[in-house]
């Protein structure tokens, strides 16, 4: 059996705006059914990538395909299986949310009306309100519902949860899980690690226009340390040095460890000690980035 056509594939995809290199030779493949998290700080090139994937901007070099259709050459056919949520909700102020959903749905062609009604309820959207009277988060919901209701094979989401409250973020995650269960592909651009962690199978990290790393989240975390802070009943004991464990700082009753890799050996070591409390913190996106930044010489670019 031949391998299925990837939902997204790019080859040497490059974009320059004048002297600025916004995206540098991106090679990316997202398989059908995959939920791919696209991480990067502001200005890393996430939105540029999505604009190129949608054929809204023209590649300076390389190409982008959605389900094997060239995004720049034949955008209409490429978009037939795609729904997009922009980072900023740019909608028509004088139209109500309901009218907007109807309009975008008609343009897309296929809408699961029943699912749309369900989404409207889930996201608590007032469809009678005009877009200009909606808060940013509510406008974002209009976009999200419009995109999700198409049940498109590929969802391109550009920081879709900016402006959503935690409850709505949960609703969003639920919807992504549903999409995944239906076999839809999701490309989620984000800088919120917890969101990506909760939903994505695989993650790519973009820095200054280059894909510096990609893999499952577990794989990525292995590359950087997590922080474990231990408070003891009394002064901290002297511990044997363990491979991959570093004491980052020490207080009168506390020790802070940076652990790269497994935490098991450290826990074993602590088992016999008078531990009062223990908190562990996963490396933040920033820390993973710092890690990439610090050791960028040693990393092989995937491009």
């Amino acid at each position: 059996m031949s391998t299925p056509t990837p939902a997204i594939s790019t080859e040497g995809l490059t974009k320059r705006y004048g002297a600025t290199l916004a995206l540098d030779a991106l090679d990316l493949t997202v398989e059908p059914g995959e939920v791919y998290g696209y991480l990067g700080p502001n200005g890393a090139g996430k939105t540029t990538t999505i604009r190129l994937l949608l054929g809204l901007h023209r590649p300076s070099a390389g190409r982008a395909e959605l389900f094997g259709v060239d995004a720049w050459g034949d955008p209409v056919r490429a978009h037939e299986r795609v729904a997009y949520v922009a980072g900023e909700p740019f909608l028509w102020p004088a139209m109500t949310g309901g009218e907007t959903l109807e309009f975008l749905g008609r343009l897309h062609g296929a809408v699961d009306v029943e699912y749309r009604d369900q989404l409207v309820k889930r996201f608590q959207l007032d469809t009678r309100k005009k877009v200009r009277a909606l808060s940013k988060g509510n406008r974002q919901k209009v976009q999200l519902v419009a995109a999700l209701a198409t049940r498109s094979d590929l969802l391109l989401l550009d920081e879709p949860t900016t402006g959503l409250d935690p409850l709505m973020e949960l609703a969003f995650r639920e919807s992504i899980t549903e999409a995944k269960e239906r076999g839809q592909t999701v490309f989620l651009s984000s800088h919120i690690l917890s969101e990506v962690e909760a939903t994505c199978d695989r993650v790519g990290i973009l820095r200054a226009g280059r894909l510096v790393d990609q893999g499952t989240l577990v794989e990525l975390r292995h590359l950087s340390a997590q922080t474990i802070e231990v408070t003891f009943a009394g002064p901290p004991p002297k511990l044997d040095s363990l491979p991959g464990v570093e004491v980052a700082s020490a207080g009168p009753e506390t020790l802070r460890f940076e652990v790269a890799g497994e935490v098991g050996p450290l826990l074993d070591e602590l088992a016999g000690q008078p531990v009062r409390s223990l908190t562990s913190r996963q490396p933040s996106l920033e820390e993973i980035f710092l890690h990439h930044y610090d050791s960028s010489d040693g990393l092989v670019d995937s491009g």
Partner: protein
Amino acid sequence: MATGRGRHGAGPVGALARRTFRDARIRTISFAYLFAVASMLNPFSYRHTYSTLAERLAFADSFAHNKAVVLFYGRAYDLLTVGGYSAWRTGGILAILAAIFGLLAGVRALRAEEDAGRAELVLAAPVTRGTVYAGAIAGIAAGAALLWVAVLAGSVIGGLAAGGSAYLALAIVSMVPVFAGVGALASQFAPTRRMALELGGAVVVLSFLLRTIADTSGSLGWLRWATPLGWAEELRPFTGAQPLVLLLPIAASVLTLLGAWRLAARRDVGAGLLPARDSADPRLRLLSSPTAQALRRELGSLTVWLTGVGAFALIVGVISKSISSAGISPQLQREFAKLGEGSIVTPHGYLAFSFSFFVLVASLFSCSQIAAARHEESEERLETLLALPVGRRRWLTGRLALASGGAIALSLVAGLLAWLGAATQNVAPTLPRMLEAGVNCLPVAILFLGIAALAYGLAPRAAAGIAYGLVTVAFLWQLIGSLLGAPKWLVEITPFAHVASVPVQSFRAGAAAVMVAVGLLAAVAALAAFGRRDLTGA
């Protein structure tokens, strides 16, 4: 407030005034340029065309009391001196433009900023609302000062006395604070920029209509005191100045601006006193395609265009009856021909003359449609559309079709209502003849639509400026060229020179075909160019 003062020397009022001025700088500079050129050309051309007293007497006797001309340029008090003529020609038309400038500036500074949400950002700084308001007004005042200098400089270069020129400039520019006040008040009532412009625009139109009625009818002359545009006339630059009349615009400006300030200080930021209809039952008409939805969005402004053109065409038709050539020598009529207003002294000629302005209006409409398309892109809504299975060319073709449809409607409405107006007075032109006059506006409009679209395809950010600029230059080209006696071939570069004066002459099919063909070619090139470029934000 004292808190912000001193950090940047001028303090927050200065900083906000600069911001307001900078926001509007392109419009301000365009207006200033237009004001200077118009102020310079009028005295120059008058001296050139009517050099002897006898010519001036004949001109004054026949031309200035022609209702047709009064309608456009306002009432004349003295046409025997260069100053009097200039005050009439320059002042009449520039006062209207100054009013429009004031309205646009007022709404831009006091509603558009709030509409866009930027006002909140400013007000979150340690400044009071009063400071922000004062800053905005100071910025507008700086723009008005620039216009004053432009008229003064233009008039002086045109050979008028400095003192009189300064007073003429003051009369014209006095409309800016009055209508900035109108804009400021409208900005307090209307919750959106668009609605504020509509409210204020209605006041401008009403002022113009009142002036027209006062100037063209003998018995209702007192109405001149009821309209700010009438005050500008009553200031009578160069013709027995009445500087006390200045108290009226000053009082009106102070009252409207203070009133707006009182309202602004009380209401919620971002809201208007008129309720915004924030919820509505769904209307699902015109949602089936991007073009249908664009029509839905443009319906409001299209209605305004159609109503404006229709109302003006009706007036033109009604007035055409009172046009006659009695007492005008053939020699003088030849002089009028130099002004490009050849046979204005007959009802048909007057209709043809008026329709030369509708040609301009239809072309400006084309520009406005391209500007609207560009607005959709700069607001990044186009990105929302094109991320769907909607092709770029299909989208732009739809917008162009919509613009053409609008231009056709505009032309036919102009023809129909001018005919209707004339018919009520038993003036002769047949309906087909007047529809022909309407259709005669189309080829130039199509030509400029294509060119504007091409500018949009190639240089989206500059497109609207290029389009409006080209139309303005092309229109003035013929007027100025023929006034200055430029060689024929040079004058005839502009497409406006190739439009027949229907209903006096017949529709020129050949020239029309060439213009439409060039317009279509430009549109095709525009589609190609648009298909090849990145979408470009604001």
